[in-house]
């Protein structure tokens, strides 16, 4: 029997996974994917809650989050392309022109 807790734990795990990815992966694309992972983890718990509480709000929210996520990824990729054009790399550890 799968309870709310299971969903929440899963989403928490996914969320942490995403954060870890953002922090420890070098490849820009992978980082973007990790971000997506975070957002979707949140979506999971939203849906779970909404189902649990029997209120539709959470699922509506999820839709918006998806849209936003898509937009973000779009922009992110565009920027990634620009960066790649200029430096020939998308390894974030090489991207530290701006510091101090």
């Amino acid at each position, binding site marked *: 029997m799968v309870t709310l807790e299971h969903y929440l734990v899963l989403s928490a795990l996914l969320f942490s996974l995403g*954060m870890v990815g*953002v*922090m*420890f992966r070098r490849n820009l694309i992978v*980082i973007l994917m990790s971000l997506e992972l975070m957002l979707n983890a949140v979506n999971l718990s939203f849906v779970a809650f909404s189902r649990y509480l029997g209120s539709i709000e959470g699922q509506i929210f999820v839709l918006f989050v998806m849209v936003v996520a898509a937009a973000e990824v779009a922009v992110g990729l565009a920027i990634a392309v620009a960066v790649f054009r200029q430096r020939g790399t998308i390894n*974030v*550890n090489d*991207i*530290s*022109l*701006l*510091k*101090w």
Partner: protein
Amino acid sequence: MIELVWLIPIFPLIGFLINGLLGRRFSEKTIGWIGAGAVGASFVVAVSIFFELLKLAPGSRSVQKIMYSWIWSGDLNVPIGFLVDPLSVIMIMVVSGVGCIIHIYSIGYMHGEIGFRRYFSYLNLFVFNMLILVSANNFLLMFVGWEGVGLCSYLLIGYYYEKKSASDAGKKAFVVNRIGDFGFLLGMFLIFTVFGTFSYVDVFSVAPEKLTQGGVLVTLITLLLFVGATGKSAQIPLYTWLPDAMEGPTPVSALIHAATMVTAGVYMVARCSVLFAMAPTSMTVVAVIGGATALFAATIGMTQFDIKRVLAYSTISQLGYMFMACGVGAFASGIFHLMTHAFFKALLFMAAGSVMHAMSGELDMRKMGDLRKKLPYTHWTYLFGTLAIAGIFPFAGFFSKDEILFYSLQKHLGFWILGAVAAIMTSFYMFRSVFMTFYGKSRVEHDVAHHLHESPPLMTVPLMILAFLSLVGGLVGIPIIQGGHVFGDFIGPVFAPAKAIIDHGAHHAEHPSVAVEVILMAISVGIAIFGLLVARFMYITSPESPDRVIERMPGLHKLVYNKYWIDELYDLLFVNSIVEFSRLLWKKFDETVIDGAVNGVATVVQAFGSVLRLLQTGFVKDYALSILVGAIVVISYLVLR
């Protein structure tokens, strides 16, 4: 007439302003006579006031004239006001009279100097301040004059300001005087806290009630005032400035550093006779310091070769006499000696000046000798002065000095001995100077010798006047034998209260018999003669004897000749040490410690900044990490709180 007392100081002030502001295109003569005339005018007024005063009954010879309220703040209200009583009148007459003579003398003496105008305006300013000092009716105004004369002496000592020694001497005089004034100031504060006023009359009238006879407070007040006096009147320990003050033009030495300013201290003590009378301890201190100074200065005087320095030390020693007189309670005699001393010491200085004038500025007596033919007037007047100061009957000095010795004996034998010994030395070094200068064989260099000349009448006439005064000046004080003591009777009332207090305090001293007095006189004359003879023997009969004496006791002579190295001692103890310490304060404390702290804070802040900016590594992952850490801290606070 007495109402017009304010005219007395005004005239010299006007003279000062005219010469100082408009004197630019005046001729020497005009400037000189404006200066002299101003002081002369004051003298005339003074004399007429004197006679006015005589008209009054002896008891009521004390008139105050308030001009306007000067400083009025809370319970403090100090007027510009004058007090006319025998004491102040005598002082005024001495100052303006001698002052006037010296002004005239200066016209001749300063002839052709670049700073002629400057000189006369300063001189007038001085007389103005001196007159304020002696005619003021309250301590504060007296202090104004007191500092004013200090300033003028500073300016006039430093008259030849290109000479470093001169400006140094000026500065020294001012600063040492300031040390004295420090005491004076504190004394005044105490007086105000006790009496709530500065006016002489009020203070002295209520002093017996407000203060306890011989109490700590009155002793403190008087001692502090006396500190001021020692500064102004060059007593131990603050006498060192006076010899250096001889850097100034000779008339200045005559007026300021012999006749008038330096006697201000004596005047002040006499003025506060009531207070001093109430503080026996202070009286003793005054007497001891006075006697000690008299002797001490005399010893130095015996060894000096610079004629003006000899006179300077003799001045210090004579001032010591005056203080001793006041110390033993003979205020009248002190003032009497002050007056006679003003005559003959001014005379001596001006005569010395005339010698300088003739010798084109030479001061060393070893380069003089046998000048009596070349400078007859100077010689005779100088001789008169010497006879007077040595106390040969019937010259002025005899009476005054004799009185002082008489009273000091009454007080304590020790004082008499001090005085007597000092007297021997005095007459010795004075005649020494006479013989070295005017007798013996000439030691004058040739280039100087061939234009040796007697000074112009503008200088010799004043000399003669003063010579005459120092001959007859003492007659106003013919001793008690005749019973009539004009001077004493005139000035007596001023010191009556003090006298009352003293006599009341002490066991009543029975009046000494005439015989005692005559013997004393004889002794003092004998003393003088003895000094004369010794001097004659050493410098005329056997001129080589001084050197033998020196060989006999080289160490002592070295010590005395170098004035006991007191100046050097002071420099070492106070001047240098303070300067060094201040330099330390500035470099080490101000710039290192305080500023170091201030700049240190700035540096630390900057350092922090540069560390903090290093957190900004530029790597996204680190930024994300910091966000995460922050988030975790926030959450855990919320969870664990």
